[in-house]
């Protein structure tokens, strides 16, 4: 809150009231109320609007490598990220990333002085924080640019040319965020609803609390639920012809004592054949329109896998919970951990996750 007051002091008097009003109002408008205002117990057609999209564009192999520099892409790829959702950031400016670096480093240093357990092995003289905006990641016009954050530790004993050690990294992103919702936000808010972190929990906590103090936002864990996992399984399999998925691995757990875990690994070619067999006839779709995937097809795909399984083991996987999906393109766990291994399909995955994060956001 402190920062809000500071900013209010800086702004001309006339705009104070407007700002505060706008802010309070935003608290009332959540993504769900925006999409299906009348849908908490809404009628059928509205009901689905509050949920994940039931149809999405087939992933194209995006030319993301042309738009984003490989160094920046490398920051996002091949690391397993723990996901959180973030409510819109108040007065976040992409132009002030440099000053945020200083502020966050100072914050971490101050917290460390207070005795908060930020102790990595060896002697640490301090931490260097770097913020950077990933140019070219945004898909839609309303998307705010993705921001990456890295924390390096500077060792006191280290030699001059020794590289600093990366102790924590994270990012905030918004890919294909719902335009209606984004438009409904007052100007002072930047919506970067998806937050990924990798590294010591302590740093995640510090970064989150700094964001909370500075931008008056809040964080919460983002699980990748059953529906999203099914979506990912189908979306990744759909890419097989362009980029081999190597395998499609699904992990279920069954509620028996002791817990039974089932790992179902499907040959990529066969997974693809099954996927094509459940796809709707492309001719039925409107010509000229982009290829789209319906959730119905996703459900049929997973159901097909389950049915084949049942025929052999007489065990219905629906009795259990889908916990994990992985292919060579990436892996996703129910606990909210995601790893994207191939930049070509990163956008599709992030679009889905952005949507999930917007849905999970409270208020």
């Amino acid at each position, binding site marked *: 809150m402190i920062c809000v007051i500071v900013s209010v002091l800086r702004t001309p008097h006339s705009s104070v009231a407007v700002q505060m009003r706008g802010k309070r109002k935003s608290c009332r408008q959540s993504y769900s109320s925006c999409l299906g205002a009348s849908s908490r117990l809404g009628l059928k057609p509205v009901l689905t609007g509050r949920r994940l999209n039931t149809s999405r564009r087939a992933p194209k192999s995006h030319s993301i490598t042309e738009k984003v520099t490989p160094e920046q892409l490398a920051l996002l790829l091949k690391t397993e990220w723990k996901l959180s959702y973030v409510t819109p950031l108040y007065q976040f400016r992409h132009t002030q990333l440099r000053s945020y670096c200083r502020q966050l480093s100072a914050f971490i240093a101050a917290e460390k002085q207070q005795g908060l357990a930020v102790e990595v092995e060896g002697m640490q003289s301090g931490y260097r924080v770097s913020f950077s905006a990933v140019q070219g990641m945004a898909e839609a016009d309303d998307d705010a640019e993705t921001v990456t954050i890295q924390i390096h530790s500077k060792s006191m004993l280290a030699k001059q040319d020794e590289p600093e050690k990366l102790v924590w990294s994270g990012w905030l992103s918004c890919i294909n965020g719902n335009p209606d919702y984004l438009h409904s936000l007052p100007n002072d808010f930047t919506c970067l609803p998806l937050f990924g972190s990798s590294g010591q929990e302590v740093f995640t906590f510090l970064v989150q609390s700094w964001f909370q103090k500075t931008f008056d936002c809040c964080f919460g864990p983002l699980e990748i639920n059953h529906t999203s996992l099914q979506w990912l399984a189908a979306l990744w399999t759909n890419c097989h012809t362009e980029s081999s998925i190597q395998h499609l691995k699904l992990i279920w757990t*069954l509620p*028996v*004592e*002791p*817990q*039974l*875990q*089932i*790992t*179902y*690994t*499907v*040959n990529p*070619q*066969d997974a693809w*054949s*099954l996927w094509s*067999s*459940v796809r709707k006839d492309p001719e039925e779709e409107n010509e000229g329109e982009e290829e789209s995937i319906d959730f119905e097809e996703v459900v*049929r795909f997973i*159901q*097909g896998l389950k*049915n*084949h*399984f049942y*025929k*052999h*083991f*007489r*065990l*219905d996987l629906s*009795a259990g919970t889908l916990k994990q999906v992985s292919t060579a393109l990436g892996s996703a766990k129910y606990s909210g951990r995601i790893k994207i291994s191939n930049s070509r399909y990163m956008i599709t995955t992030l679009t889905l996750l952005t949507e999930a994060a917007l849905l999970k956001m409270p208020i």
Partner: protein
Amino acid sequence: MDDTTKRLLHRLIRRTSTEMLKTTLGKWGRLTMAQRQSLDFTQSKSALTEELLTLCEKNGWTVKNVAELEMIHVIDNPNQGMWHAYRLMDPEDDACSVELTQFKERFKTHLSEVVRHVSVKTKKHTDEAVWIRIAWGDTFSRPNHLKPTYVVYHLQTPYVFVTSLTSKQKPLLSQALILSTRYQGFKDANLSGRKLTAIRDLLMKQYPLVFPTNFSSPVAEKDQTMSNPCIIKEQDGLEAKRLQMARGAFGDGVLPQLESAVYKLETKFKDQTNRIMTEREEPFRCVVKFTSTNLLESFRQCAASGIVSPPITPLFSSIPLKGKNYFALKDKTLGSSP
């Protein structure tokens, strides 16, 4: 004292709990009474290691001595590492008369015939099992004591349990075993697990078995009287049937702790709702792995609670029945059967 001895001892101490180490050292018997009493087991692991290394130097222990210590430790803690079961095939007439000393002698000679540098140590355990520790070397290098293979052979049975065996060493071991046990073949039993006792019990059927019967056991009928007369189960019969079926397949006693089972399926896709795939000629290739801290117990629970629909598939009941946990399935028309 060479470097290998030190490393071997160091590694062993690191892996063992202090309490365990005390008893193991006692069994080993290479420390004098005074030395044993002077050892302070309450101090830190690193200090204890230092002390033992000094003793090692002083007493002039060789690699073989320390290897023996390791072997005692492994015999006492068999449930570590991945054990694979093998089965000896086609016994010769005199196979059942092979006794311990004869086997030990033969095994050593046969193995050193095929591998130039090899260090073999055997020990007979209380339960009729012969434990063999093999440190492999080759024509040019001395036996590597840091990567030993352990073999457990139960005399007069066709079962052999092996841990950390590379594919290169397998034929060598196989030949030595065949010749010294008077069998003619050596085959993978498709059973593996981290708990040696569990896979041994499963293979040798040393756990409470149930003989399939068609009569309901008296246990199935007593439940109803326990509960409140106001609460009645409509489908009581079904539940009893499920319980009986679960017991029939997996028994009702304590089950060997098997951790996993793998099925490699190359069968035709089966799903009536999907015509395209069901009519496809090629098999649908997938691998299904079941894991649990006690797999058979989990399966029994699944069957009892109805998650697995009756009748229980032979794929599950084969695990205790055939003593296997790896299955490769192909459709009969395509070639071999499961």
